């Protein structure tokens, strides 16, 4: 999944350039419907994850009825191929998917942010070397690499998080690098330097705060990517067998021959959850990123034309 797509998609709606100041962010978040919807979706899922212990008094995998039982009042989403309640499984999955999403995004942001920061700030040889490495990493196809790494390095959740994190840092690095470069030119950084401030101080006190908002916005997008990536890994049976994730639920339905049993309730819901969460974070993350990195777009062409109004006498003197 490319962040370019995420970018283009949710950028719609930001018609007028907005400055990157915090006030404008609030305006974007609470002004644009899609940013709000995205935030709401993500928040809803987070809420479910946090409240999950309330729903999961017992292991969600326990069999509570016949396998592939149809949805009913007591089990709104029916039972899966092992007789376990789908709703409970989904709730359990929310936790894991969010965990993987955020953790992996964090790892990616950390690596990408550091690389971007170093590259943009120090420039010169550091920049060239780091960007070269980035170039190489980008070309290597992400999903096959992820699958291979997962196949080789085993099945623990931690490993999966690390693998995803290590593969997806490149676009963050480039983004942050560009931002750091522009921040670096700003006067006060030069002034601070003239006053003898050392590099570390400059980076942490001056550059980083300026770059942080964009990094955070980008991280939200990374969360979507990570959750998406996890479903790949789980589907091929490479996930951590001891945890339930949405990806795993989809895999289960496949290996349990849910299709043969026409048990759509085991197939559809987990995918819907993934889609919703990915959509939500994309919408929210992209609106954020746009607020901080605005682009003005005027369309000169459209099927619709400018309108003529009748002249009402001597136009009312305003």
């Amino acid at each position, binding site marked *: 999944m490319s962040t370019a797509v995420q970018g283009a998609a949710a950028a719609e709606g930001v018609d007028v350039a907005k400055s990157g100041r915090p006030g404008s962010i609030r305006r974007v978040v609470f002004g644009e419907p899609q940013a709000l919807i995205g935030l709401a979706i993500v928040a809803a899922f987070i809420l479910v994850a946090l409240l999950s212990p309330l729903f999961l008094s017992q292991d969600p995998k326990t069999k509570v009825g016949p396998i592939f039982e149809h949805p009913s009042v007591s089990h709104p989403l029916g039972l899966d191929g092992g007789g376990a309640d789908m709703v409970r499984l989904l709730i359990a999955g929310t936790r894991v998917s969010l965990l993987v999403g955020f953790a992996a995004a964090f790892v990616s942001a950390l690596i990408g942010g550091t690389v971007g920061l170093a590259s943009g700030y120090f420039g010169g040889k550091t920049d060239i070397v780091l960007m070269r490495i980035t170039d190489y990493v980008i070309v290597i196809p992400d999903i096959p690499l992820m699958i291979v790494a997962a196949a080789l390095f085993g099945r623990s959740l931690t490993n999966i998080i690390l693998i995803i994190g290590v593969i997806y840092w490149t676009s963050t690095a480039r983004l942050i690098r560009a931002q750091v470069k522009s921040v670096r030119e700003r006067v006060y950084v030069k002034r601070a330097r003239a006053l003898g401030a050392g590099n570390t101080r400059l980076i942490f006190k001056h550059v980083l705060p300026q770059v942080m908002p964009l990094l955070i916005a980008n991280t939200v997008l990374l969360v979507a990517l990570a959750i998406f990536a996890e479903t790949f890994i789980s589907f091929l049976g490479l996930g951590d067998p001891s945890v339930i994730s949405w990806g795993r639920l989809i895999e289960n339905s496949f290996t349990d021959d849910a299709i043969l049993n026409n048990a759509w309730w085991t197939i559809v819901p987990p995918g819907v959850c993934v889609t919703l969460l990915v959509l939500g974070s994309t919408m929210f993350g992209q609106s954020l990123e746009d607020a901080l990195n605005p682009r003005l777009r005027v*369309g000169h062409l459209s099927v619709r034309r400018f309108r003529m109004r009748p002249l009402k006498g001597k136009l009312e003197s*305003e």
Partner: protein
Amino acid sequence: MSALLEVEGLNVWFDLAGGGELHAVRGVDVQVDAGERFGLVGESGCGKTTAMLTIMGLLPPNASVAGEVRLAGENILARGEESVSPHRWNDVAMVFQGAMNAFNPVKTVGSQIEEPLRLHGIAEGRAARRQVAELLERVGIPSDRAARYPHEFSGGMRQRAAIAMAIACGPKILLADEPTTALDVMVQAQILELLLSLAEDFELALVLVTHDLPVVAQVCDRAAVMYAGEVAEAGSIDALFHTPRHPYTRMLFAATPDLHAGGERVVSIPGAPPRLDRPLVGCPFHPRCDSRFEPCPTVTPLLKVVGEGHVAACHLNDHVREGALV
């Protein structure tokens, strides 16, 4: 005698995302005679560019227009896009602000100059290419450059090429929006000279839109000063410079130390123009005016004749009785 171009009561609104409208052009009246050199002056955001674009009907879909634009007596805005588009390029042509980007980067300059020739049925194939070569030579570009791409031209040369493209179909009016901004001083002078010589040779009326006063003074015979979407004052360059009848004009022109220095920018007047997304009360300039008095904040001044071919919208002229002058 009717002017070649007459703009009457021009109003342009833009629908804003989120409701409301921006009233960008608020009742503008302008006349330009054949072969005349007319300047449209004002700060950025005063509506001069929008007014010019409206003359050619080049507005985005969220725009709405009221008023008339008469070309040799015919109102070309009568039916909106339908009535204005036939006049594009062969009657009225434009050189855009930042003509650097007027060219499509993936096509040769020559092919893009050829395009309107073909489109308007003036010439095709080899004949067209010959005309393109002539046009390029006329603006001072070696004709073999026609096969080059825009990025291979310098800024000044691209501007010349844009001018060549503009006169390709023999328009009667050439609108030039900030033709010299972003060019260095030497090149500016050359471009202006080029425009003048072309206007003479081809009997073009030239409408120069700019915020750069020395340019207007050099090139134009008459000018209109726009502020907040309206015409504040209009008249001969001489009158505007020596006997301005609107404080804005006076402050603008006075802020330019030496007209012949060339390339100097207008010193900005403190304060900012009013927002155009809400109705204006009184004179739009009054908050920044050094001569405001009692009627200014509440009563809108109307454009009044204050001398021969000289109009101004300012309460300072209220005592002038129009009948006595015209």
